């Protein structure tokens, strides 16, 4: 496919398969460039690249058929499921043998791919949430970018008063959980053995969040007739949104005319103690059933090495997983979120729990049940999935 430079030595080349997703053409270009770079550096290995969509389902089918790709992306969210089913290859021994250091990686990102003490993947990039706002709208309403919940409430009121578009908030655990962390709450305990959803801190966070929407200060994408908040920002239907780094290239490509800016994610109150964020990351991992583990690891080494990371990052503009690789320009705000960021990850068998959580949050948002009841139900579902 994208073999790039054809080497005459192809005869004794090993071919390995790399599976990935790509949420935009830019990403697809990026991964192909990275593969090219790898193949140039390792002429004895040829890479067969497959672009899977839907990704997790496609991978599951391949795992099930016992013919998985050799190396592939693993989303932090599905990692617990996959690793617990035994489809991933542990990396520690190979890393030790290859003298590959774990030091340069952000520890919180590494943690996301550790299972029972072993490492099963190396992060490829990441993004926390931040606050993106339409600068013209803020100016028109005469407000500065808010830093706290109270600030957001005040700003939203002024936006409304000035007839500017509202805040956009999705009723989505992948956003609300960040606010729970900001209020000192969370979802699972540190050892991931118990749910800690049903707490007063979470109740307060969720109530505040939902109240912004219910009071009309914020709107959901559905209410705005949008697919997601990023679109609302682009179409100037929302003044403030909370999204990750992916907004940057999206806005740049699709809505170059809109003036907007990234700000730090707000906190519950002022002070670092009241900050919290969600990190979305994915790893490169190797399949347990791979027949070319050595070659696959070689590729992993390259991809997660300084060179590979640089090629990838320079192409897609995401945040590198290694602290020794410079992030692209203008991403400082995101990088600064790192210390407060919790990985978007739970425990094995949690995909239905996240569905449950979203459904319960929606029910609470619609006023069909109280926030307390919703959180209690989520807690029960989570504990059930944990085997309690």
């Amino acid at each position, binding site marked *: 496919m994208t073999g790039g430079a054809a080497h005459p030595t192809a005869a004794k080349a090993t071919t390995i398969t790399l599976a990935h997703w790509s949420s935009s053409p830019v990403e697809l270009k990026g991964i192909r460039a990275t593969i090219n770079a790898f193949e140039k550096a390792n002429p004895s290995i040829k890479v067969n690249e497959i672009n899977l*969509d839907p990704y997790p389902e*496609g991978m*599951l*089918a391949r795992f099930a058929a016992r013919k998985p790709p050799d190396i592939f992306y693993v989303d932090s969210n599905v990692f617990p499921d996959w690793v617990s089913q035994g489809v991933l290859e542990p990396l520690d021994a190979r890393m030790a043998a290859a003298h590959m250091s774990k030091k340069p990686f952000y520890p919180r990102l590494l943690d996301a791919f550790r299972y029972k003490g072993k490492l099963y993947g190396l992060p490829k990039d990441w993004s926390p949430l931040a606050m993106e706002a339409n600068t013209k709208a803020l100016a028109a309403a005469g407000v500065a970018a808010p830093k706290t919940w109270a600030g957001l409430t005040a700003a939203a009121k002024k936006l409304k008063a000035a007839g500017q578009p509202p805040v956009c908030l999705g009723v989505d655990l992948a956003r609300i959980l960040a606010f729970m962390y900001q209020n000192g709450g969370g979802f699972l305990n540190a050892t991931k053995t118990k749910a800690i959803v049903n707490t007063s801190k979470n109740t307060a966070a969720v109530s505040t969040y939902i109240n912004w929407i219910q009071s009309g200060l914020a709107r959901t994408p559905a209410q705005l*007739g949008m*697919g997601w908040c990023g679109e609302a920002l682009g179409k100037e239907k929302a003044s403030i949104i909370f999204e990750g780094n992916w907004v940057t290239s999206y806005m740049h490509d*699709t809505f170059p005319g809109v003036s907007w800016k990234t700000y730090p994610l707000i906190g519950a109150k002022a002070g670092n103690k009241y900050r919290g964020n969600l990190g979305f990351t994915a790893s490169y991992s190797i399949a347990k059933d791979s027949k070319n583990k050595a070659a696959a690891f070689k590729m992993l080494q390259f991809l997660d090495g300084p060179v590979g990371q640089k090629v990838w990052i320079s192409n897609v503009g995401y945040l590198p997983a290694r602290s020794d690789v410079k992030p692209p320009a203008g991403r400082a705000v995101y990088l600064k979120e790192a210390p407060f960021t919790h990985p978007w990850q739970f425990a094995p068998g949690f995909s239905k729990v996240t569905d449950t959580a979203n459904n319960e949050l929606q029910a609470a948002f619609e006023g069909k049940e109280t926030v307390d009841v919703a959180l209690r139900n989520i807690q029960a579902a989570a504990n059930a999935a944990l085997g309690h």
Partner: protein
Amino acid sequence: MDDREAAPHIAPTERLARGEPPAVGTPIAAGVPGRGKGHLVGQLLLYGLLLAIAVFYLWPFYWTISTSLKTLPDSVKSLQLVPHHLTLKGYREAFTTGPFGRYFLNSAIFAITVTISNLFLCALGGYAFARLRFPLREPLFMLVLATLMIPDQMRLVPVFKLLADFPYTHWNMIATYQGYILIHLLYATNLFLMRQYFLTIPKDYEEAAKLDNAGFFKTYWRVMLPLAGPALAAITILSFQGTWNDFYWQLILLQDNSKFTLNIGIAQFASGGGFNTNWPALMAATTIAIAPVGLIYIFFQRYFIAGVTTAGVKG
């Protein structure tokens, strides 16, 4: 479903498929003495009502086509009936951002292959079950009929596992063309329909062929198959439509973008996979998805309705 139950629906099929006017059965209303007064008013009222319903049934499709020809900003101006700025941008985008060209091709590949295999296998099997005498014919046919009672939902797990990682076969056919086609080689309803149709063909033809010294294959190929034309037309349409419109198995088995069909593409696009509510592009894709079956319907309505009525079991 057993023979008896489906049987009443065979008659209309034949009638319709052979191009004869449908049986009457119309309650007498017009043209009858004593219903004269108010009858004109009633007629007009009925027309008005029917037209209103027809508009209600067809409007969404007009709206779809019309939107597919609008610009993005125009598409969200809700009450613009006719596109103010006629553009094919929606179609262009459907073919570029979402690879709907590829999806269309895939849909066509699946629908056409499945149709061909159904035509071939159902005609052969239907003929054998209707006409050739061999031991255990009836029990075997009952077995085929019994499969109609097995819901696809129950089959999700075992069929997926069978195609993916069954111990001895190792087909590894998830997300492949073969896998999907394999499990759609025949629809039981088509086999049933062919058999029923062959049963309605008088035995005399075969016997005449027999006396005319024609062997089994010649009898089948030169005499029986041509006689089964309407049924073949019906299963062509049914298989094509069934496969073209399928969502469930396509979603389950085609876990790979390169094998996606229009339906899966649209579903993805519609439920936010396109990360954008680009209505003209989505409506363009939808138009493309509806067009082939719609055209077949417009041109072959007779066979279409006959086929659907007969094979109603599939619904």
